[in-house]
């Protein structure tokens, strides 16, 4: 077990190095480099830019800059935001709760939709329920999230006036009901897209498991159908699906950029779009690195969890 984890972590380390090179080169390939924002500002004198370049070490060779950035980043020194001068870490940490709240709600709703749909669809492949959910799932996967968000805003916020169209709380307010009302639409957008994909994976995994000899044997022994489905088949079918769910969760935390922007949800996704609009490279680099690290880490966790749940997956 420990050796398995150690191996996976050792494999993840070079992966993170490659990612850090990609992120670093991307930011530094900008014409004008990270200081591009000042170059276009007529109020900043050329000698000030030169001073900033030296202060930030941008006059040194690229590999030296990379190395010192990497060491500083690994030590938790993520630099200062260009737009308000505060430490990058602080700006990121204050946005985490909003994103976690949104993503956790969306994942809960998505699982509540995907689990029953995937199981029931797998019981009668090509039956009416399966055909309906398959059609809905393909539609959900094809749906552009930002358009779906705009439609929900038009119908439920602007048309019917039932729910607020954006933000996390009403200004000055902030009761539980107010909170949930703000959460409803963005969480629905994320949940629908995820539920569509997850129900498909679970359906496929369940159909495969239900055809296996041990399930047929359990039925032949007279185990009640409910128990066969839930205790024998589902437990085995769930492993690979949960691995996918975990990795998707990491992607959601980093990738709710679109949904958060449409609903002005003050989380990490909105921080990213704000930083992009202001060319705040310190923030952008930190966000991209953290998101990639989270995805790599969740991959390791998902593999480990899968191996622990299913003894057939060897701990190699």
């Amino acid at each position, binding site marked *: 077990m420990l050796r398995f984890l150690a191996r996976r972590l050792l494999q993840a380390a070079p992966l993170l190095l490659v990612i850090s090179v990609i992120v670093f080169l*991307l930011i530094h390939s900008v014409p004008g480099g990270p200081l591009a924002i000042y170059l276009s500002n007529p109020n900043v004198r050329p000698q000030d830019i030169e001073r900033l370049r030296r202060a930030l070490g941008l006059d040194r060779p690229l590999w030296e800059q990379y190395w010192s950035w990497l060491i500083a980043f690994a030590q938790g020194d993520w630099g200062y935001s260009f737009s308000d001068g505060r430490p990058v870490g602080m700006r990121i940490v204050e946005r985490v709760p909003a994103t976690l709240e949104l993503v956790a709600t969306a994942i809960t709703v998505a699982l509540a939709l995907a689990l029953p749909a995937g199981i029931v669809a797998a019981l009668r492949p090509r039956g009416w329920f399966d055909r309906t959910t398959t059609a809905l799932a393909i539609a959900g996967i*094809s749906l552009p999230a930002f358009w779906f968000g*705009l439609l929900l805003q038009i119908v439920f916020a602007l048309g019917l006036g039932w729910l607020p169209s954006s933000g996390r709380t009403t200004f000055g307010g902030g009761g539980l009901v107010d909170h949930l009302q703000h959460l409803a639409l963005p969480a629905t957008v994320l949940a629908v897209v995820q539920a569509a994909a997850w129900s498909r994976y679970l359906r496929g995994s369940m159909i495969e498991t239900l055809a296996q000899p041990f399930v047929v044997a359990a039925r032949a022994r007279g185990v009640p159908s409910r128990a066969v489905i839930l205790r024998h088949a589902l437990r085995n079918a769930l492993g690979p699906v949960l691995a996918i769910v975990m990795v998707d969760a990491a992607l959601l935390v980093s990738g709710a*950029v679109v949904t958060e922007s449409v609903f002005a949800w003050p989380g990490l996704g909105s921080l990213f779009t704000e930083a992009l609009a202001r060319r705040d490279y310190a923030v952008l680099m930190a966000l991209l690195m953290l998101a990639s690290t989270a995805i790599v880490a969740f991959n390791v966790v998902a593999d480990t969890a899968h191996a622990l749940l299913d003894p057939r997956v060897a701990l190699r």
Partner: protein
Amino acid sequence: MMPALDGRGTLEPEPGRSVEIRPRSEGTAAALLLAVLLAAALAAPALAPYPPDHLDLDRRREAPSAAHWFGTDELGRDVLARVLYGARVSLAVGLLSAAVAGASGVAIGGVAGYAGGAIDSILMRGTDAMLAVPRLPLLMIATSVLQPSVPLLVLLIGLAGWMETARVVRAEFATLRGRGFVENARAAGAGHARIIGAHLLPNAAHVVIVSLTLAVARGILLESALSFFGVGVQPPRASWGNMLYQAQATLATEPWLAFAPGLFILMTTLSVNIVGDRLARR
């Protein structure tokens, strides 16, 4: 599929058979819809009732009517005309970026799967690394720093989308490599180019085509998302994404502006995904 034997030993038609035909006809319907959308995009100059940048300042922000089926925008431009011209940009970016993604994916995955060993593990670690970087944020940074243009969008979206193809091609090549007919060809003196071109690629074509359809749908969604954030196709040229970007500002007063472009994106990605789903199940 094999016909099922019933208890009396006679051959009964397989029970799922009558429904088997349905998804196939859905696939055909989706392919037809896709063809219609492509034809409409190509024929945009003939079909569009107005030029896409024709300003009619007396008829700004009009709701859908007989003269303007999808209404007019804040400059009095016809939304139907802009959606049709936008289709050219959006579909071109989707198809061409998928071609870029497919070509690089086949090259990288093919080399990795054929060569094996150290080359394989280096290329696949690179693939893993690219897969771990969130795609949309990466593209948003890249396009915003590099002055977005349509060819650049094609290139960047393609270069951000080769990983899935590379993985399936590598897996296919790695298993095919050890098969008898490849060994035979090698024993008969075929060179690397011949083995790859004549034996491996044709057998991997199926998985490549399926991954290409996914790449087309993803390319269209990414183009529209980038344009929606203002870092994709730039106005005044219309794309489905930047039409939605402009619609967002006046959602409360002119909701129809958001309707048509999104519907076209959905129709396209939906039909591409259904066609891909059918091909994958074959």
